[in-house]
């Protein structure tokens, strides 16, 4: 099998971190480069975390480019799940000796995309600051993006554990607007599916059987990461970003449906809300695929297989 080459834009972040580990370890994925954005933490921290993780797992040769330090049009509101460093729970994880490339993430992405003959898959698991700025600054890369798999948005809200707005969309809705307007083929892996891949007792038990430093590291990450969910909603940590990454390896893990998606930029309570026009009532062309069902068991099998040696 030929691995799928990807560019990975993220804001690590515990779940981003696990997704990075999976991307590096999967034979189905070729990690061409990693770009970082503000989101779960400030850009300095998410970049430092990406470098720490990559070096630790032996992926120190993957180029990392630091990106936006703030959302395009709003003050930065940080995520709260990952703690002050963006990667609490593993203080023993050393700081990286590798450095990011000099280029800004948007220029790095443009150069990588344009240098490749075939269009490339981009996976984004943070606010879309970098992808929005990329499309503003380098619109000619558009045909070079084969697919944008983005962890973000929320549509169905079938359960009370699902919030009305999703953090990545809420953090930079203007960037999401640019992406949705651009015509880039986007698959939105939102809370409707990611809040169904929760790390609970059976998953912790499975993880406990992975008796390696990596297994312990992931376990330590999850114990910190789940606090926000556990304390507020009484559930374990959601594997938001790993699920988005997993679709590169196995797109059949979710079902999707097409729709025209808008994102609210105004609203007192609803800015960042993603709104789907499923029935074409506005007469607008479908601009996204929404993941609406997920095979949770198969996802976790994939995740644990990749964490195992």
């Amino acid at each position, binding site marked *: 099998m030929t691995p799928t080459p990807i560019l990975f834009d993220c804001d690590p972040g515990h779940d981003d971190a696990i997704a990075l580990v999976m991307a590096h370890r999967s034979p189905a994925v070729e990690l061409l480069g990693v770009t970082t954005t503000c989101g779960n933490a400030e850009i300095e921290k998410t970049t430092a975390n990406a470098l720490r993780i990559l070096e630790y797992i032996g992926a120190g040769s993957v180029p990392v480019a630091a990106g936006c330090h*703030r959302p395009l*049009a709003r003050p930065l509101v940080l995520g709260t799940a990952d703690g002050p460093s963006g990667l609490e729970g593993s203080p023993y994880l050393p700081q990286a000796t590798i450095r990011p490339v000099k280029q*800004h993430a*948007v*220029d790095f992405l443009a150069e990588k995309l344009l240098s490749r003959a075939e269009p490339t898959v981009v996976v984004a698991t943070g606010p879309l600051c970098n992808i929005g700025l990329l499309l*503003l*600054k380098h619109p000619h890369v558009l045909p070079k993006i084969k697919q944008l798999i983005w962890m973000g948005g929320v549509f169905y809200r079938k359960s009370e554990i699902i919030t009305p707005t999703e953090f990545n969309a809420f953090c930079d809705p*203007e960037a999401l*607007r640019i992406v949705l307007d651009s015509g880039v083929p986007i698959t939105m892996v939102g809370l409707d599916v990611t809040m169904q891949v929760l790390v609970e007792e059976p998953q912790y038990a499975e993880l406990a059987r992975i008796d390696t430093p990596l297994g312990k590291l992931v376990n330590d990450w999850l114990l910190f990461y789940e606090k926000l969910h556990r304390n507020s909603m009484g559930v374990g940590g959601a594997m938001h970003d790993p699920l988005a990454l997993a679709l590169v390896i196995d797109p059949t893990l979710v079902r999707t449906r097409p729709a025209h998606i808008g994102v609210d930029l105004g609203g007192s309570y609803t800015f960042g809300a993603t709104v789907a026009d499923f029935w074409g009532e506005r007469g607008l062309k479908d601009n996204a695929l929404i993941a609406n069902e997920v095979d949770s068991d198969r996802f976790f099998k994939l995740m644990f297989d990749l964490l195992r040696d």
Partner: protein
Amino acid sequence: MERIILDVDSAGDDILAVLFAAASPHVKLEAVTTVTGAAGSIEQVTNVVLNTLSLAGRDDIPVHAGAWRPIVGHAKADMEAPVHFEKRLTARFGDRLKKFNPPAPAPTRKATPGHAVDFIIDTVMSNPGEITLVTTGPLTNAAMALLQEPRLAGALKRLLVLGGTFQTPGNMTPVTEYNIWADPEASRIVLNAEVDKILVPLDICEDNRVATSMMTRDDIADMQAVAKNNPVVDMIADVFPIYVDIWREFFGLVGFPLDDVITVALAFDPGLATLTEPLFVDVLIDGHVARGQTVAYRGFQILPGGGPKTTRIGTDLDGRRFLKIFKDTLARYERTI
């Protein structure tokens, strides 16, 4: 000499601003950067600049193309409103309007490689405290540069922004001016930035209280009388009478307002304007009619608010002295190439 990067959207007075900056002995024009705005697509905007610099014999000045769209913008129909306005003008002026914002002929040279945003960042960061950025179009490029390089604000000498309005009625909606309106999110990023700024609002450009700053047919004749073998003045005499007429008839001004030229002039001669003390200036993002309104924090309010007090706003202009500088600079300009 002020080292200036001029960021334009190539409407009529942008053309005069490019010529003025290229011709002024007080300006070292590092480059002209282009942004989508009043004159149409980024290709049109860039071609107009290339042709304008060629006319002035200044093909040595780099021209970097920039943003092709605003960060958010407005509904398509509203963004295209200036085009529909031109149709109304055609109905009134007929064939004479062909000289107003015509499609640019193919330039004799290409734009300089490299995005406008990168040129701004690279030039400012390698010459800290030296470079003045003058924007006479929407603020998309300036905002993108500030987004991409957080240290840019600290490295700029000064920012001159043509935009906004406070007392004078707006030209897009009653409370908004085109440049700010066209990209309110970008405008907000720029006006909130911690860098010394002079804001040049409609109040000191497009208002008959500063009528002495406006270009009339007499002023064009004055320039022709002095100019010798001067293709720049020939072009102005050929193209700009229709601009004078449009602004007289449709906007009720006594001549063609030189907003963009005023902004360039203030970069090297800020004494031409009366300026406020440094204030915090914000831009309204929500709302329909008020989306893109500039708000200056002055006086005393009960609700707390505000931000960095870094913007001095022009409240009056020595129009007579300004216009003389403009006319002298272009009428006496000699092509060296």
